[in-house]
């Protein structure tokens, strides 16, 4: 227990210290984690920690990340990607593997080892690339999309590669240490397909995929609705984790990539109203696990080996990366990824990845790679991952400026739709939403009434389940890119907190908030909202105007008197807002009470003085003719 707590503390503390510093220096979180890992490595060695097994555990972060990526990707978009996925991905893996293998062969390796090395370096790091692209907001760019297609293909390709590698076994290496078994990441300890004839295994595999898709489409909604009714956040998180882990487990048991399985499940749920909730529930786990993963990569660098062969190792690392980048650059040309996007694509995917580790240990276990080659290969993979964040920095510093000056960027790369988030879809929020939709705007509705959301979605409203006052859910709903937030939730206190949070953390968002009463107006104003709308005020004013008309006031006079009332009322509210003190009830707040009484007296005075309504003074200013004497005076002066 103490050991576990000590380890948890070490890793967490290292991340907490180094990542903010790295971010501050503009290095990105990945480099921060890697450096933290390097700093931790002597301590870990001292404690005899098995870094590699922690790394296998942490790889689950990649599985979660692909689930999240899937959530962002509607099936239609995935289908549109198919040419790139197969063409770009397939060519990248094939070409890189062949070229690296040829190079290895030229360096004197036997052909089996050369092919294995080629395959190992054909793969890139999903973890580093997606994490960095997300962090930099480049996922939607052309280069980002192309990178993602390639990474997804690589994830799929790992499975056949794992099946193929044992065929390369070199007889002389047999009887090698098998302790790592058949790689834990895709550990086949619990297999459903072992020992089955091939056609049955294939059938079972297809059935498993069908199960994931069908469960995603038909089972999750009622299940999540049932869970949502419990109204316990941790149960929803538990359900989300169960879902992701369950799919990963099922995929592993039929011999498929768990990352691919959860990615599929994510795509199936991309249209679900629980999408944002799932996203914000899984995201912290993904972040922590990936962080742990990066730290283990940093910690597993074999500095002894590096010191002994510094030049060779670094030379080979740079060589491999240059080769990969060249292949990617060529493919970018063919697939029309242009300009700075082609640089992004080539530089982002030039490293080897975490699947490289998996393949190396698997190949070693299967007598394909001798130990004395596996160790430097592991080091090269690690170093190439270490260099990736620096390539991203180089991209920002050297590549981007050139293209920004040369020509304006494509419009469709930066057009984010004007985005509106509506928190609360009750009697108030729903009207706002209808108005915005009817004017052709795109809205995202957040509400925690699961039953109502389902009805809404039938009518094509983009509605999501969740508590809008939670920052992580707001983040998942895209508050960073939002233009306007409409706060229409029923709970006064929570709506004030929501306004306070968004006004403080996302000052670019215009907040339109619904106030329940006068004090709520003061509170929302104090929380930073400058567009406060009292929810029943306008309708009450209209009722008052109707009564004016019913009493025989001319409709136009009634309209003007109502407007006069509104501005007078707003004036007093603004004035009294300065005296409002949330800690003291208004009737005990002396300055507030006094000023309110003065304002009332002013009104009464106006009424007495004129013998009519208090707000007539405003309306009488207009169209009041001069007296006949005035007219004569003017005429005399002018004639």
């Amino acid at each position, binding site marked *: 227990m103490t050991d576990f707590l000590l380890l948890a503390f070490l890793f967490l503390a290292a991340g907490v210290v180094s990542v903010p510093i790295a971010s501050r220096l503009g290095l990105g979180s990945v480099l921060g984690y890697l450096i933290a890992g390097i700093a931790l490595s002597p301590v870990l060695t001292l404690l005899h920690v098995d870094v590699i097994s922690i790394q296998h555990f942490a790889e689950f972060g990649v599985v979660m990340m692909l689930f999240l990526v899937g959530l962002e990707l509607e099936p239609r978009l995935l289908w549109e990607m198919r040419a790139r996925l197969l063409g770009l991905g397939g060519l990248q893996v094939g070409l890189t593997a062949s070229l690296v293998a040829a190079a290895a062969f030229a360096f004197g390796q036997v052909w089996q080892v050369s092919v294995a090395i080629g395959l190992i370096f054909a793969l890139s790091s999903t973890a580093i690339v997606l994490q960095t692209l997300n962090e930099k907001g480049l996922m939607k760019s052309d280069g980002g999309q192309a990178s993602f297609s390639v990474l997804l293909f690589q994830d799929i390709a790992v499975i056949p590669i794992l099946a193929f590698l044992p065929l390369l076994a070199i007889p002389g290496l047999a009887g090698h240490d098998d302790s790592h078994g058949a790689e834990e990441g895709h550990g086949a300890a619990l297999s459903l397909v072992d020992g089955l004839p091939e056609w049955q295994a294939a059938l079972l595999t297809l059935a498993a995929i069908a199960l994931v898709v069908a469960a995603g489409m038909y089972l999750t909604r009622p299940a999540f609705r049932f869970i949502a009714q419990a109204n316990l956040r941790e149960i929803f998180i538990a359900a989300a984790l169960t879902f992701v882990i369950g799919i990963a487990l099922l995929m592993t048991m039929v011999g498929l990539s768990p990352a691919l399985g959860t990615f599929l499940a994510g795509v199936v749920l991309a249209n679900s109203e629980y999408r944002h909730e799932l996203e914000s529930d899984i995201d912290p786990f993904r972040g922590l696990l990936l962080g742990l993963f990066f730290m283990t990569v940093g910690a597993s660098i074999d500095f002894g080996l590096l010191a002994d062969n510094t030049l060779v190792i670094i030379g080979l690392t740079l060589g491999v990366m240059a080769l990969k980048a060249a292949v990617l650059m060529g493919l970018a040309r063919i697939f029309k990824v242009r300009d700075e996007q082609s640089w992004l694509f080539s530089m982002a995917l030039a490293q080897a990845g975490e699947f490289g580790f998996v393949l190396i240990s698997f190949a070693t276990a299967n007598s394909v790679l001798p130990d004395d080659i596996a160790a430097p290969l592991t080091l090269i993979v690690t170093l190439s991952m270490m260099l990736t964040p620096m390539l991203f920095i180089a991209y920002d510093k050297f590549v981007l400026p050139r293209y920004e000056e040369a020509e304006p960027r494509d419009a469709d790369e930066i057009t984010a739709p004007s985005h509106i988030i509506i928190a609360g879809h009750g009697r108030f929020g729903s009207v706002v939403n209808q108005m915005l939709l009817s004017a052709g705007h795109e809205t995202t509705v957040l509400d925690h009434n699961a039953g109502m959301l389902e009805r809404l979605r039938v009518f094509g409203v983009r509605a999501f389940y969740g508590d809008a006052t939670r920052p992580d859910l707001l983040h998942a709903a895209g508050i960073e890119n939002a233009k306007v937030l409409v706060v229409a939730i029923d709970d006064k206190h929570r709506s004030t907190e929501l306004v306070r949070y968004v006004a403080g953390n996302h000052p670019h968002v215009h907040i339109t908030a619904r106030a329940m009463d006068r004090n709520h107006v003061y509170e929302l104003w104090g929380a930073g909202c400058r567009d406060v709308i009292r929810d029943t005020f306008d309708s009450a004013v209209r009722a008052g105007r109707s009564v004016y008309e019913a009493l025989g006031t001319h*409709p*136009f006079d*009634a309209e003007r008197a109502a407007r006069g009332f509104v501005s007078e009322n707003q004036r007093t509210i603004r004035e009294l807002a300065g005296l409002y003190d949330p800690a003291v009830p208004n009737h005990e707040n002396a300055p507030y009470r006094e000023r309110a009484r003065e304002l009332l007296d002013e009104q009464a005075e106006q009424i007495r003085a004129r013998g009519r309504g208090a707000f007539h003074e405003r309306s009488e200013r207009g*169209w009041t*003719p*001069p007296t006949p004497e005035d*007219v004569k005076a003017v005429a005399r002066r002018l004639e």
Partner: protein
Amino acid sequence: MAKVLHIFAHPGQGTSRVNLALWKAAQSVDGITGVDLYAVYPRYDIDIDVEQQRLLDHDVIVLQFPLFWYSCPALVKEWIDLTFEHGFAYGQDGDCLKGKHLMLALTTGGPHGAYSQQGYQHFELRTFLTPFEQTARLCQMGFPAPYVQFDALAADGADHARGFTALLTALRDDTFDFRRAGEAELLTHDTLPLKEGARP
């Protein structure tokens, strides 16, 4: 029998004397469609279809308003801007108002003498009304001389109101002499051009 549309526009009816007197007097004339524009559209949300149908349904349109700064009150302008649409009132195929008459009934604060080259308003009243006259011409409508009460703040308005009912009645009964009204400069309660045999 001609169909007469009487459109009345005064934003400050609480302080109106002569115009309000005209409006009230007009209520007593049968067969006239009366519209208090500021009562129908207190929020300026003019219904174009309804207003165009009103124009189609009538032969003579009488616009009654006080002259504000040498023009009509804002809502009348809004009403013209929206209702006299291209393709309806003018322009390609826009001849829906052809042959109808547009007539103004207005009050001015200044005396008659002010509206002359030597007076302090420096122009004839008709000069200020040329936008309305040309509007009618562009829509192929007749534009009889306007029915005017000068010095409306001093006048008691009773004669003017009585003359207005006579005017509306004559328009309704086809006893109004449009030819003479077209030649006249201005009309007042005692210079109404009625056809022979009509009772004033």
